[in-house]
């Protein structure tokens, strides 16, 4: 690049000149622009928007842009100028802030060209030791300009993590002040300071002292920029970087105010604050993405794709970076995992390209035919966003947009990814994740190069991403142009009013960005878009995009159609089961001989009951739901029959509200439990119902410690412990036996574990539903339960072992035949049905694959 064209007059000047020899307009910044420009933007939150609004605002401040109507071919280099302010501004900000704090900066500037890394380290070690290390590591592994990037990346990291918690925790206004009072605020200096270091290498390559010369008016420009949002903190300034900043703050500070006050949950609110502050990044990168005029999609795709280069290269050298990348996949979003994985491969080629892509870009700056090539892309570039705008307008599917952006930002960025795990508390992030499904499809369409070909495969999509990195940068450079014209028109406007742009694709920016907490990208945006001048070219893309959307909704329909429920099967099962059960019940024929199984645990229960003295105090716990009363009554009837024959004093209690009634019913209802009801036990004389013991485990423990305090009253509200059945009972161990009837392994465990310390030598028996067996049996094996009767089978076996004197058959025996036939039918149904389903599924799958081929 021997000559530089003056942005103002277009005359060519020697490269070493910093001002145009003809018109005096500044020249040099241009060349610095590219490297620094996209660094801050791609890397972190603020840089992105800073970049943007710098770009908006500095344009007027800086020399004349190209005049509208001038042929791009002639003005190719000057077209690039618009891009200056972005980097320049961030650079300046960085510098003056660092000047404001540490004079070391200027010295570092001189050092930098010689050895970037040491240059960065001295004052980085000053305030940000942690990224220094990363910087050094990076430097070792990267070529010339990469250390700078790394530094900035590192810097960004600290930006987000260090100061974030500060402003976020205080009212918005303070936060805004923090922003405006940059040199004063240490937190601010850290991140800002980190940026120039990152930028240094490039700066020093081309005239850095010039950069310092200008500092005063940058300072004020910087001030104006930060002051503006500070003063007007309202949703109307989305295009702004800083307003976003703030808009992010309310969400955090607001949500955290209660929290921030209290000391107890310090860890919580602290990390929340950090999260929130960090959120501002994805929040508004995406917001800009969807709201800002045509060029922004490309911006973003650029900025997202660009950082990939250093990160991935670093990824190999720096494990923690890599982990940073990994971090995206699992904790943040399972959904993003697939896309991320699929993206990694292309990204590695990407980093291969990016460095030379950089240099190549520098070379290209002045090459006209290159510009031509890019002009094509420029024509292509805006539409995607045009589509987006219309898209927001019609369908509130912004999240897709976000999704489209996120995968770019999120998995690829090294350092931000570290933060990303925090970010994901923003709705936006979630949405992005939630929508990642659709993203690949249409994002790929968004890429101008990709046009309208649609392939849903992730790898195809990622290959697109790969291309973007190389091809799209020019398009955003081009994209500056319309903005130029706008700004040129509004040049005279004061710094603040630059916020509100009247026309051009960027117009309406500010009405657009959702500001404020929880305003997720899912929000349907206000109808600002009607002030957009939609060219027929954009119209074309709108229609294209609608097509894309319509296509995109198809997989949704597909994913909706799950296995349809099969009524026929249900009816068949129901019919057969009912038939198989009813027949034996009605006919009463015995087709099954009595169970010969005599489980040892059942035998133990039997002998234990048999060994009880008469009038022995026995505690019976009714801990089952009415739903399982059928099974438990059948299972427990023989045992209870056997027990009542010994004439014990019963104490009934239950930890489920319905237990007491079930107990009463079990003791008295002749239909449901003829065996037991036949003993006709009398409340108050032979048994006491202590009713419902509230409080679950703690209630049980309370009861275990002091029964009379935990359950002072009977079911009908009279003091229980004076009644005859409870005479002389104080402790749990005073009972001769404890019998727990439960359908639920948990309540069984509770009784075993909570009473363990106070039960003494009192044996505990259990009658359990078959479903609880695996969890309860171990306690029998470990001796904590002395006997166990499990389900219908256990009851039947008990009935076989203990023949009631009245020779009545219990429910278990009556059910036994039906049980055997019913289960058999069910088994057959399961086997047949399962096989049928397997074959069916296999057939359909094969048919599908057949269609696929």
């Amino acid at each position, binding site marked *: 690049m021997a000559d530089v064209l003056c942005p103002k007059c277009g005359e060519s000047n020697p490269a070493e000149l910093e001002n145009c020899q003809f018109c005096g307009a500044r020249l040099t910044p241009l060349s610095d622009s590219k490297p620094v420009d996209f660094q801050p933007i791609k890397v972190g939150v603020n840089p992105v928007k800073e970049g943007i609004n710098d770009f908006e605002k500095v344009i007027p401040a800086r020399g004349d842009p190209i005049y509208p109507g001038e042929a791009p071919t002639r003005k190719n280099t000057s077209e690039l100028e618009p891009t200056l302010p972005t980097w320049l501004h961030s650079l300046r900000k960085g510098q003056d802030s660092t000047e404001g704090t540490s004079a070391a900066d200027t010295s570092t500037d001189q050092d930098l060209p010689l050895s970037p890394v040491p240059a960065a380290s001295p004052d980085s070690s000053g305030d940000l030791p*942690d990224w220094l290390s990363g910087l050094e590591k990076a430097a070792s592994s990267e070529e010339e300009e990469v250390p700078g990037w790394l530094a900035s990346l590192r810097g960004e990291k600290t930006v987000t*993590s260090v100061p974030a918690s500060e402003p976020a925790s205080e009212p918005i206004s303070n936060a805004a002040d923090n922003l405006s009072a940059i040199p004063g605020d240490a937190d601010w200096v850290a991140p800002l300071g980190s940026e120039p270091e990152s930028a240094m290498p490039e700066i020093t390559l081309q005239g850095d002292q010039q950069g310092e010369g200008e500092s005063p008016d940058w300072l004020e420009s910087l001030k104006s920029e930060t002051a503006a949002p500070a003063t007007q903190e309202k949703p109307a300034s989305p295009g702004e970087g800083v307003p976003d900043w703030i808009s992010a703050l309310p969400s955090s500070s*607001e*949500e955290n105010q209660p929290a921030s006050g209290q000391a107890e949950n310090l*860890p919580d609110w602290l*990390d929340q604050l*950090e999260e929130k502050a960090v959120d501002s990044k994805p929040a508004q990168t995406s917001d800009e993405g969807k709201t800002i005029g045509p060029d922004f999609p490309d911006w973003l795709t650029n900025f997202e794709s660009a950082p990939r280069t250093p990160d991935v290269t670093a990824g190999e050298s720096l494990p*923690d970076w890599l*982990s*940073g990348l990994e*971090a995206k996949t*699992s*904790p*943040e*979003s*399972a*959904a993003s*995992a697939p896309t991320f994985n699929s993206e990694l491969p292309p990204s590695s080629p990407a980093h291969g390209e990016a460095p030379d892509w950089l240099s190549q870009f520098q070379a290209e700056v002045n090459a006209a035919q290159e510009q031509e090539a890019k002009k094509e892309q420029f024509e292509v570039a805006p539409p995607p966003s045009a589509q987006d705008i219309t898209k927001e307008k019609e369908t509130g*599917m912004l*999240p897709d947009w976000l999704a489209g952006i996120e995968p770019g930002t999120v998995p690829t960025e090294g350092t931000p*990814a*570290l*933060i990303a*795990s*925090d970010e*994901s*508390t923003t*709705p936006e992030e*979630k*949405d992005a994740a*939630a929508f*990642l*499904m*659709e993203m690949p499809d249409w994002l790929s369409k968004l890429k101008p190069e990709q046009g309208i070909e649609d392939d849903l495969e992730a790898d195809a999509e990622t290959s697109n991403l790969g291309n973007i990195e190389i091809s799209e940068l020019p398009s955003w450079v081009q994209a500056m142009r319309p903005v130029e014209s706008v700004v040129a028109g509004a040049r005279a406007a004061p710094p603040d009013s630059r916020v509100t742009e009247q026309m051009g694709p960027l117009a309406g920016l500010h009405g657009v960005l959702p500001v*404020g*907490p*929880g305003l*997720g990208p899912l*929000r*349907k945006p206000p109808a600002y878009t009607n002030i957009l001048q939609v060219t027929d070219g954009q119209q074309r893309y709108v229609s294209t995009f609608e097509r894309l959307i319509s296509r995109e909704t198809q997989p*949704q329909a597909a*994913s*909706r159609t*799950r*296995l*349809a*429920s099969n009524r026929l099967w249900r009816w068949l099962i129901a019919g057969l089961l009912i038939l198989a059960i009813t027949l034996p019940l009605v006919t009463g024929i015995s087709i099954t001989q009595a169970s010969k199984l005599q489980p040892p645990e059942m035998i133990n229960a039997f002998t234990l009951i048999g060994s009880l003295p008469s009038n022995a105090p026995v505690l019976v716990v009714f801990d089952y*739901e*009415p*739903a399982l009363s059928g099974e438990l009554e059948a299972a427990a009837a023989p045992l209870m029959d056997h027990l009542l024959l010994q004439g014990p004093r019963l104490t009934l209690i239950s930890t489920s*509200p319905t237990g007491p009634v079930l107990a009463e019913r079990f003791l008295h209802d002749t239909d449901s439990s003829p065996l037991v009801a036949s003993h006709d036990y009398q409340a108050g004389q032979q048994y006491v119902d202590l009713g419902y013991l509230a*409080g*679950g485990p*703690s209630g049980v423990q309370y009861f275990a410690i002091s029964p009379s305090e935990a359950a002072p009253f009977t079911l009908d509200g009279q003091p229980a412990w004076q009644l005859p059945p409870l005479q002389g009972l104080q402790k749990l161990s005073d009972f001769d036996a404890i019998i727990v009837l439960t359908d*639920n*392994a*948990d309540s069984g465990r509770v009784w075993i574990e909570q009473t363990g310390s106070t039960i003494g030598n009192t044996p505990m028996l259990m009658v359990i539903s078959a*479903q*609880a067996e*695996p969890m309860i049996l171990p306690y029998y094996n470990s001796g904590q339960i002395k006997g166990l009767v499990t389900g219908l089978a256990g009851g039947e076996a008990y009935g076989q072992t203990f023949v009631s004197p009245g020779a009545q058959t219990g429910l278990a025996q009556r059910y036994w035949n039906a049980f055997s036939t019913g289960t058999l039918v069910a088994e057959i149904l399961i086997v047949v049905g399962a096989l049928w389903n397997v074959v069916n599924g296999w057939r359909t799958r094969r048919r599908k694959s057949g269609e696929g081929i």
Partner: protein
Amino acid sequence: MSIWLGLAGFGIVFFSAVLMVGLSYLRRKTPSVFRDIPAFTRLRQAVGLVVEDGSRLHVSLGRGALTTPQSASALAGLALLRRLADLTSAGDRPPIATSGDATLAILSQDTLQTSAKSSEQAVFDPAAGRLTGLTPFSYAAGAIPAIRDENVSANVLMGNFGVEVALLTDAVERESTFVLAGSDDLTAQAVIYASAPEPLIGEEIYAAGAYVESSPLHSASLTVQDILRWLIIAAILVGALLTLAGVL
């Protein structure tokens, strides 16, 4: 003896508490990676579809009373509900939360209200957080209409259920909508394993926070679980060796 047991218990809790805090700060620098749980991936997709087609999300929190150890699963469910409520905050209709315990119902209303406020939705319908019944089966039966009648396209059953969960999964199956189900109760898990397309097994329900929200503290909790897990395994193996040697 039981004093020592108590001390040991305290030790474990204290240890994990310190670990959680410490890790949650480390996590900020180097987040941890967790194994893929497809159920959560599908949940995200389902939630996305819910917002898109204006249908509703239904979260059922089970019936674990707060005063019982089963409360934890419900609390995990509530944390998930908050996230999902935020995610769907811009959807046409807020999610429905059904529960079988009064305290849970109140908490679900609080959660939904908080989410509605933070997402600046003026309208909050208290009927969105419902108590559908006070006994397990009445709760399940009461939740069935919510699944069927309210244009629900995605269901999340997370909390303390018993076998009655089969009624819910069956109702969902009849509607052929999405369901993500998990419980701390083993029997319920078995039923879910058989009847739900997206079962969450064992402690996976407690990982929901980390997988859907991934705040440092949540991912730290998972790491703490892993650490304790291996401690327990070590204890088991050592104990086994000692018993073999006859020491214990």
